[in-house]
């Protein structure tokens, strides 16, 4: 077995065996607490269940997985695994665990807990929405159909070593092991919670849950035994739920709130950005998100590629970006710019209604046609849909808007009955920073099945095959692999199943007393902020 290093970040990490002693921010101060607000109550803190952007970062601070990301970046680094080896064929990963890491209940974490946690998340009884991510682990299928309760590919070698065997190569496997779903949980705490582990979470993370008053607040307290020495800086993080974003902003201005978790309300955005004092406390960053219009390739006349191209050319993306106060950059392709594999220099379909109209006429639709545009019914999405409707009208396409609740739009998209869907409010945000995550579920054949998230029902076998080949490569960051992915998305654009509209920017507002690098406030994996690394200065 040969040691295989998969990225520069890992090389740096592995060169330092005592990685737990990472370089800390010299300006950081320990102590104090912050208040974060949210409109919605927190659904669950069970890492096998939680799958919304609100609880994702909270779970990240309560739990750890074998892999992790360097704060504020998309670079993988070892977490509870101190190091790992990969077999030459890329099918066996051996993780060497850190020793002396304790759960919040005081017990030491061992390889048995890793095995238990992976068994638990893939067991259908757990109903984990993330179970499918582990499909590459040997024995997954037997778990999924319920014929066993132990994942065959995960073997405990000794208390500090776990070996995971795959059934097929998976370049993204280390990213999967950094997902919240792969967090290590203690079996005794899961059993003791008797089905309510999501309300009584016990992990190894930087914070532990101290208080949860349903509908009012959650308090996270610093884990004094956290294995990353010197972290976290904050003593407490208090999440107050049930707060309208606009009220949260008023409270922030009043000094009662440190981070409004739902962001700056659209109606107040220009006012905040127009005030230099407030604007200085807003951190802007990209996020791994694309807003798009799906064109259902099975519904005539959208089954005609020229019609889809004409629609791509009819949409004025700059105007749509203005509707959301310029809080986005116009998109040219499915991948967002900060995603590896993004094709630099590709201009996409230019906004050109005249040519679009001509193309439509050449395709036999000189008089246009009627269609439907589905959209989620919360602001600003209906307004964006109206802009799209006007753009379509300019080339003779008459689209009626179906403005529905989120669940109804998702249902129509999955069933394949919606000719066009504006993805706003449900748009794809990457689970992990790898180009494959924008393909399989939303543009690949697997997602095109009834009920899948591929709302275009777009399925081209050659493109799928190239995607599979790219994912079989060992090193996720290898230039050849990223070139293959770039090629995949260029081929997708040739078929035009989507109109990529914009990539939303993130704007996190913070109180004046909050410290830490700006990158922590637009951390790609922890929204709104990385609680483990931020601090207060008073």
């Amino acid at each position, binding site marked *: 077995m040969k040691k295989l290093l998969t990225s520069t970040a890992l090389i740096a990490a592995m060169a330092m065996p005592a990685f737990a002693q990472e370089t800390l921010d010299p300006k950081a101060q320990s102590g104090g607490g912050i208040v974060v607000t949210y409109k919605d109550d927190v659904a669950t803190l069970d890492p096998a269940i939680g799958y919304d952007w609100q609880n994702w970062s909270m779970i990240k601070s309560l739990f750890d997985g074998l892999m992790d990301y360097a704060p504020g970046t998309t670079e993988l680094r070892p977490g509870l695994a101190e190091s790992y080896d990969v077999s030459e064929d890329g099918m066996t990963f051996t993780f060497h665990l850190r020793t002396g890491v304790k759960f919040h209940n005081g017990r030491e974490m061992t390889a048995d807990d890793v095995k238990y946690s992976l068994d638990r998340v893939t067991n259908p009884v757990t109903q984990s929405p993330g179970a499918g991510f582990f499909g590459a682990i040997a024995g997954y299928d037997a778990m999924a159909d319920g014929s066993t309760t132990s994942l065959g590919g995960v073997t405990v070698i000794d208390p500090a070593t776990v070996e995971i065997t795959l059934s097929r190569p998976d370049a993204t496997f280390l990213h999967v092991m950094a997902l919240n779903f792969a967090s290590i949980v203690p079996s005794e705490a899961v059993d003791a919670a008797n089905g309510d582990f999501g*309300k009584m979470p016990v992990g190894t993370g930087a914070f532990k849950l101290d208080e949860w008053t349903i509908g009012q607040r959650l308090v996270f307290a610093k884990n004094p035994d956290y294995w990353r020495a010197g972290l976290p800086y904050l003593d407490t993080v208090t999440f107050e739920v049930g707060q309208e974003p606009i009220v949260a902003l008023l409270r922030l201005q009043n000094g009662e709130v440190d981070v409004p978790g739902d962001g700056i309300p659209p109606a107040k955005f220009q006012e905040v950005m127009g005030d230099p004092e407030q604007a200085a406390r807003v951190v802007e960053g990209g996020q791994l998100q694309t807003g798009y219009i799906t064109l259902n390739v099975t519904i005539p006349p959208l089954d005609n590629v020229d019609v889809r191209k004409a629609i791509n050319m009819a949409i004025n993306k700059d105007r749509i970006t203005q509707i959301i106060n310029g809080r986005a950059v116009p998109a040219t392709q499915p991948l967002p710019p900060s995603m590896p594999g993004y094709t630099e220099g590709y201009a996409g379909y230019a906004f050109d209604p005249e040519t679009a109209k001509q193309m439509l006429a050449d395709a036999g639709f000189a008089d246009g046609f009627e269609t439907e545009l589905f959209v989620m019914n919360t602001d600003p999405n209906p307004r964006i849909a109206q802009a799209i409707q006007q753009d379509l009208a300019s080339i003779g396409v008459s689209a009626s808007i179906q403005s529905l609740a989120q669940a109804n739009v998702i249902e129509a998209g999955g069933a394949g009955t919606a000719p066009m869907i504006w993805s706003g409010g449900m748009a794809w945000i990457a689970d992990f920073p790898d180009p494959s995550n924008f393909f399989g579920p939303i543009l690949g054949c697997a997602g095109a099945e009834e009920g899948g998230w591929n709302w275009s029902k777009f399925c081209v076998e050659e493109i799928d095959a190239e995607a599979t080949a790219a994912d079989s490569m060992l090193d996720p960051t290898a230039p050849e692999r990223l070139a293959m992915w770039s090629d995949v998305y260029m081929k997708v654009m040739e078929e035009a199943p989507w109109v990529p509209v914009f990539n939303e920017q993130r704007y996190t507002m913070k109180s004046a007393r909050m410290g830490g690098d700006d990158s922590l406030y637009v951390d790609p994996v922890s929204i709104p902020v990385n609680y483990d690394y931020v601090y207060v200065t008073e």
Partner: protein
Amino acid sequence: MAGYMLRRLVQAALILLGVSLITFFLLYVLPADPVRQIAGRSATPQTVANIRAQLGLDQPFIVQYGRYMAGLLQGDMGRSYLQKTDVATLIAARLPASLLLMAAGIGAELVIGLTMGVIAALWRGRAVDSGLMMTSFVTVSAPQFVVALLLLYLFAVKLGWFPIGGYGTPAHLVLPALTLGILGSGWYARMMRSSMIEVLRADFIRTARAKGLTRRRVILRHAMPNAILPIIAMIGIDIGIFMGGIVIVEGVFGWPGIGQLAWQAIQRVDIPIIMGVTLVSACAIVLGNLLADLITPLINPRIRIR
């Protein structure tokens, strides 16, 4: 009386059964799949099928409804699909806050509405009357969201008299209760005005005046108690309107009641929570109406229950 009570209770049970059936049916035919919401966007078809089978959502409507009602009769309201917690626990944690806000809101609208109604009746046809009636018209039509935010901005942000949203102290209760009070006061003002005008024309008021009682005594001891009677029944009906309006007010003020719980559950098709909150609200409305019917004959002997 006992027979009447029994009849009303049976009626109430039938109403609740009807509500449960209609709600469950609407959720069943709704073109939205709760399993998709639970399973998330990356779930494989196998995961989806597994979850559907575990929740029994692959069963026909009548089986699903039967299972739900069988559980309910044993006091089991089911588990939230997304929060994975007993619905009864979630509702129990939030119901006291909603009941408190409802009581305070009804108190506020009665005080404001009845006062307005009495003043308007006493100065009928004058400027103060038309002014008050105009105000009542505005409060009835004003959007709750706007009124709530205006009060919040003025009294909490600008003047700093009350906390900016939240829950816990009596000070937190004032603005949400006032919002509900102002919005609901218009109906009571109009009802009270016409009721008061009618009573003031009645023979017994003339008699009271003829006895030489002071104007103040006539109004407070003789006219008002009689004028309030028809209002009492309205409070019971008002509980239903309250249950609807409380969702928005709870949202703006961050009041941790069942309105917020329902709102979130509807967004995510969390059927057990939607059913639970609907049934609890329906119970409150039915009970409110029942109480109103039972109290009216106690304070007005002219109405007899048979």
